[in-house]
Structure formats: structure tokens, C-alpha cells
């Protein structure tokens, strides 16, 4: 891919997330990309914390993220630069979010009126399905279907959309919007629809498991565990048993449920 075409692709995908000129960015990234012929999007990069910096190293990647200096660098060599950059951006956002008192979560966020529901679960749990079903039924605006940013504020935790989506079929109208989290739900595929409470320890563990990138850095584990506990204390978490239709909305609070 030639540089102008790549730049155009990146602008189209991430342009809506650039901050205004007058605001200091949370992170500036220097990118150097060497496209290669061939195919393949499998990456084998290891992330380590070295002092204040995170190093991402692998056959295709040489990356550095310095959350204190708000800078990151990537040298990528491979056949799909756009996906390589996306991969790096996900890592950067997860780390920067954590160091700014927030958390990037494997989850879908759906906003309906004043309520925003965070549906967590790892790959295959049904996040994208829930988003697609909700979109088709006109139930909610999706902020994201795979990775959602959480940030604390006085009244709780606010979910923000990200450019990191799985499905391509739903218009990403909510990707740059946000909503105060009303409840967090762990998705469980079932043939019945109901919600059941989760204990705080199980909920904390679940959120920890759904905090990509940072849950893989041993040095962050104690702080991350505390962060997850704080979030579930504020927003709670329930198991949401759902089947492949939009009927699960009937058990969400304010949407027909208690």
C-alpha cells in the first residue's frame, strides 16, 4: 500500500478521534511503516514494562510507549500496515487509559436514553451479536462492540466509544459518543433470558480478565485489581443470559426490567 493510500485509510478510520488543536493529546505517536509483500495478520509481539516505558517487541514490531511523556513510537514491517497500526493503537490506548485512571475493557457499550449498558466478555461471548441485534431492533446506539474506554467521574464511570470494532455491518454512529455506565453485564449465551447477580469477587475477577493488555503486565496486577474492584463497586455486575434475539432488553433496568 502506498503512503498516501495508507494515510487516507488511517484518516478515515481514526480521524474522528483526533483531539482539537488547542487540547494537549493524551499521547502522540510516531509511526514508521515498511510495507512488505504477502499476506498475514498474525503478530507475535511481547509487551514488557521497562522502567516507566512499555516496550513492544516482535519480528514485525518495535514499539515504545511512554505514558509519562505521553509519547509512543512504532516501527512496523509487514504485509498489512493498517492492521499493524491498529494493533499498536489498541495497546497504546489500553496503557494510556490505565495510566490516566481509566480502563480499556473488552466489552460492548449500548446507550438507550440516559442509560448505558456495558456488556463484557471475551471473544465469542456475544458482544457483537448483542450490538447487531440491538441495532436491528432500534433499541440503542452502540458506542462500541469490542473495546470500550471507561473513565471515572464524580457520579460513576463513563463509557466512551473507540475505533476498535469487530463487526462492519453496523454503522458506527456512536463510536465517538459516551454515556454514564448504568450497569455492567457478563454475557452468557443461553436459551433463556434472565439476569442474575454476581458476587463482588467474581465480578472483580471478570473485569480483570477483560482488561486487555494491562492484565498481561505483572507489575500492574495489584493496581489493576483495585481499579476493577472500584468499577464494579460503583456499577455492579450481573450475568446476562441471552439468546440470539433482542429480548434481553426486557430484563435491563429501565428497559422493561427491574
Amino acid at each position, binding site marked *: 500500500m502506498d503512503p498516501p493510500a495508507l494515510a487516507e485509510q488511517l484518516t478515515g478510520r481514526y480521524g474522528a478521534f483526533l483531539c482539537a488543536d488547542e487540547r494537549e493529546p493524551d499521547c502522540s505517536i510516531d509511526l514508521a511503516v515498511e510495507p512488505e509483500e504477502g499476506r498475514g495478520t498474525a503478530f507475535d509481539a511481547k509487551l514488557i514494562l521497562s522502567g516507566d516505558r512499555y516496550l513492544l517487541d516482535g519480528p514485525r514490531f518495535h514499539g515504545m510507549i511512554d505514558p509519562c511523556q505521553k509519547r509512543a513510537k512504532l516501527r512496523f514491517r509487514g504485509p498489512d500496515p493498517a492492521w499493524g497500526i491498529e494493533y499498536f493503537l489498541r495497546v497504546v490506548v489500553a496503557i494510556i487509559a490505565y495510566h490516566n485512571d481509566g480502563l480499556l475493557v473488552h466489552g460492548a457499550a449500548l446507550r438507550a436514553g440516559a442509560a448505558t449498558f456495558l456488556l463484557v466478555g471475551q471473544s465469542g461471548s456475544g458482544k457483537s451479536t448483542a450490538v447487531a441485534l440491538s441495532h436491528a431492533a432500534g433499541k440503542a446506539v452502540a458506542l462500541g462492540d469490542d473495546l470500550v474506554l471507561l473513565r471515572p467521574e464524580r457520579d460513576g464511570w463513563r463509557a466512551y466509544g473507540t475505533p476498535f470494532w469487530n463487526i462492519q455491518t453496523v454503522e458506527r454512529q456512536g463510536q465517538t459518543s459516551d454515556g454514564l455506565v448504568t450497569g455492567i453485564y457478563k454475557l452468557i449465551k443461553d436459551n433463556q433470558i434472565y439476569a442474575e447477580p454476581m*458476587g*463482588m*469477587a*467474581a465480578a*472483580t*475477577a471478570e473485569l*480483570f*480478565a477483560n482488561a486487555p493488555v494491562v*492484565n*498481561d*503486565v*505483572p*507489575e500492574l*496486577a*495489584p493496581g489493576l*485489581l*483495585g481499579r476493577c*474492584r472500584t468499577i464494579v463497586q460503583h456499577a455492579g455486575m450481573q450475568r446476562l443470559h441471552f439468546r440470539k434475539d433482542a429480548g434481553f432488553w426486557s430484563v435491563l433496568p429501565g428497559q422493561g426490567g427491574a
Partner: protein
Amino acid sequence: MLLTDVPRRASGVVGRTVDDEAVLIHPQQGKVRVLNSVGARVWELADGRRTVAELAAVIAGEYEVSLAQAESDALRFCTDLFGRGLLTLEL
């Protein structure tokens, strides 16, 4: 594992008590485990000074369970945690 073994919480494992239960994180393995209130108490007692038998005696005193049952449960539980790298044994 034997009742005379002395279990200790493995170094590097991050544990936090949440509403009487406990969340254990093994950062090197990327594993997360949730313990119920009795399990959390056993985890707390596994300080590298008590034997499994002594630890079970504490549990029998605090919960409505016989000493024999507590010993059996504690032995099985500690063996499980040991197998997962969450406990080590004092030599």
C-alpha cells in the same frame, strides 16, 4: 500434599479480599481465580508457619464443620492451589 506440610502463599501472586471472598491473580500465568469465604480464609492462613492440619483446625473452629471434614477439605484445596502455582510449600 500431607497434613504436616506447611503451605505458603506463592510470591508474585496478587490477592485481594472482596466481600469475604478473594480474588487471586497469578500475573506470570495470567490466571484469575475466585475463592469463596472459606477458601479466602485458608488463603489468608497459609502464611508459611501453619501446617495444613493446623490451618484446618482454625477452619473447624470458625465454621460449622468437623475437624475431619475440615482436614479433608483443606488438604484438597491446598493441593489444588499448589497445583495452580498459587501456593508453595515450606521445606
